[in-house]
């Protein structure tokens, strides 16, 4: 099948098509808590749960998960493997050049998985750089960029497929620290009930010396502005009513993570 030409200037008709099909395909990356398959084999997560509600209100009753690797989310979206990226993807200018984002549904700071008691006393990327600690993070994670910003070379990092591998790497001493978003690292430490590793307190990461706001949203193909706008409308309603926080609270999110930033601000 051909990639639909990105020339469509009229905002696309995906929403109509989805309505008539009754199903929307969500790209998820197997990252707890954003979007994942749970122990019962059901797919869930902060983003999919929001998407389920919003698409229902937009007249698309069924959602179908398409699990993929984080690094394949954007190529997969662009080549129509799925209709929306629903993986809590951070909004940043590079990604905005490839896809369009809804306004963020959460904001988050980073945190580390370190060995119990944090023996190297690592609390932010500068600590890692100064102490020459071995850092690990996930494929295509935004954390790679944050770490590079303080001078850590990508070739010195251990790039792992997911946070579970990260936890094990820290437990086994293959890495001193695994960097991820706060909720991700806290969740995996809790899920595995790790005796030998712990999650650090959240901290603020910087890019070009300025605090970088890690805020994630839903990604759409660039031509599908109509769908994105309709999605935004519902999202804003949920934020206002507090329904959003209610939905995501079970996944470890708190008021702390709620935000009123817009995709436009994050893209520039």
């Amino acid at each position: 099948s051909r990639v639909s030409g990105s020339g469509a200037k009229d905002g696309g008709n995906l929403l109509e098509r989805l309505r008539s099909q009754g199903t929307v395909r969500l790209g998820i990356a197997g990252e707890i808590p954003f979007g994942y398959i749970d122990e019962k084999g059901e797919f869930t997560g902060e983003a999919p749960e929001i998407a389920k509600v919003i698409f229902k209100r937009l007249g698309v009753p069924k959602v179908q998960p398409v699990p993929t690797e984080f690094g394949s989310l954007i190529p997969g979206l662009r080549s129509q493997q799925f209709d929306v990226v629903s993986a809590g993807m951070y909004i940043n200018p590079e990604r905005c050049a490839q896809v369009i984002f809804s306004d963020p549904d959460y904001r988050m700071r980073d945190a580390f998985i370190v060995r119990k008691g944090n023996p190297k006393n690592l609390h932010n990327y500068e600590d890692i750089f100064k102490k020459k600690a071995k850092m690990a993070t996930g494929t295509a994670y935004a954390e790679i960029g944050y770490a590079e910003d303080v001078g850590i070379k990508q070739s010195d990092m251990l790039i792992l497929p997911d946070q579970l591998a990260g936890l094990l790497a820290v437990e086994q001493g293959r890495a001193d620290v695994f960097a991820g978003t706060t909720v991700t690292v806290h969740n995996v430490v809790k899920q595995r009930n790790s005796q030998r590793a712990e999650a650090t307190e959240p901290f603020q990461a910087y890019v070009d010396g300025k605090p970088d706001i890690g805020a994630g949203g839903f990604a759409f193909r660039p031509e599908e502005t109509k769908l994105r706008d309709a999605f935004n409308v519902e999202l804003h309603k949920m934020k206002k009513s507090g329904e959003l926080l209610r939905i995501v609270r079970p996944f470890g999110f708190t008021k702390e993570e709620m935000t009123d930033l817009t995709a436009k601000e994050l893209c520039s």
Partner: protein
Amino acid sequence: MTAGLWENWLLPGVWITIQLTLYSAIFAAVVAFGIGIARTSPLWIVRFLTGFYVEVFRGTSALVLMFWLFFVMPLAFQYQLVPMWAAVLALGLTYGAYGSEIVRGAIAAVAPAQREAAIALSFTPAQRMRRVILPQAIPEMIPPFNNLLIELLKATALVSAVSVADITFAAQLSRLATGDSLEIYAIILVLYFVLAFVLTRLMRLLERRAKAGIGQAPVKSGKGPLITRKLSARQEAEQSSNIITAGGAQ
């Protein structure tokens, strides 16, 4: 492992793996015969081009090819294959190249006198190939093809890297869901082994029938390791393909 994971992911994954193996095998067989026969062409340009194809696809890594088809093709040619077909294409092209060497070797192994007898009866080159050479060559191809098929089955695990939800991919999801690696990987290793075993048995059956079809007594399986991949078969594969292949292109 919960019932939900089995039902939603693992069993569908097994089915996807079977489908992938089947489609890739069919595609690879078409490529193998097409290229293998073309390599016996009297036209040097045909031999050169097909030889080039074989060298290129035996030289690449199937995994790299798969990534290329998945990531580069859509951008470079504005043409996108669903992951499943990108995977079938990559596996089929690669294993077809290996298979073509088996086909060529088996054709070359048919006694030249058979070709001469067919010329003496005024068959056209196409009739010679179809009616005399291939029917004799095909039974000889089955044991090395069996080996190649197992390699192909194993190579289907690579599709998990481009997010096709096969057994291996299902295992990854289950691992994240349960946090238990040992159980899930042990299970799917056994699943693959069982699939390999069944495939080998089927090929054995095919071999026996093919040999019977040319008036040869079926070979007794004899001793040999439990899964039947006879050393002799492996050697045939090695000789006829001149170069490994086994495990070759994953």
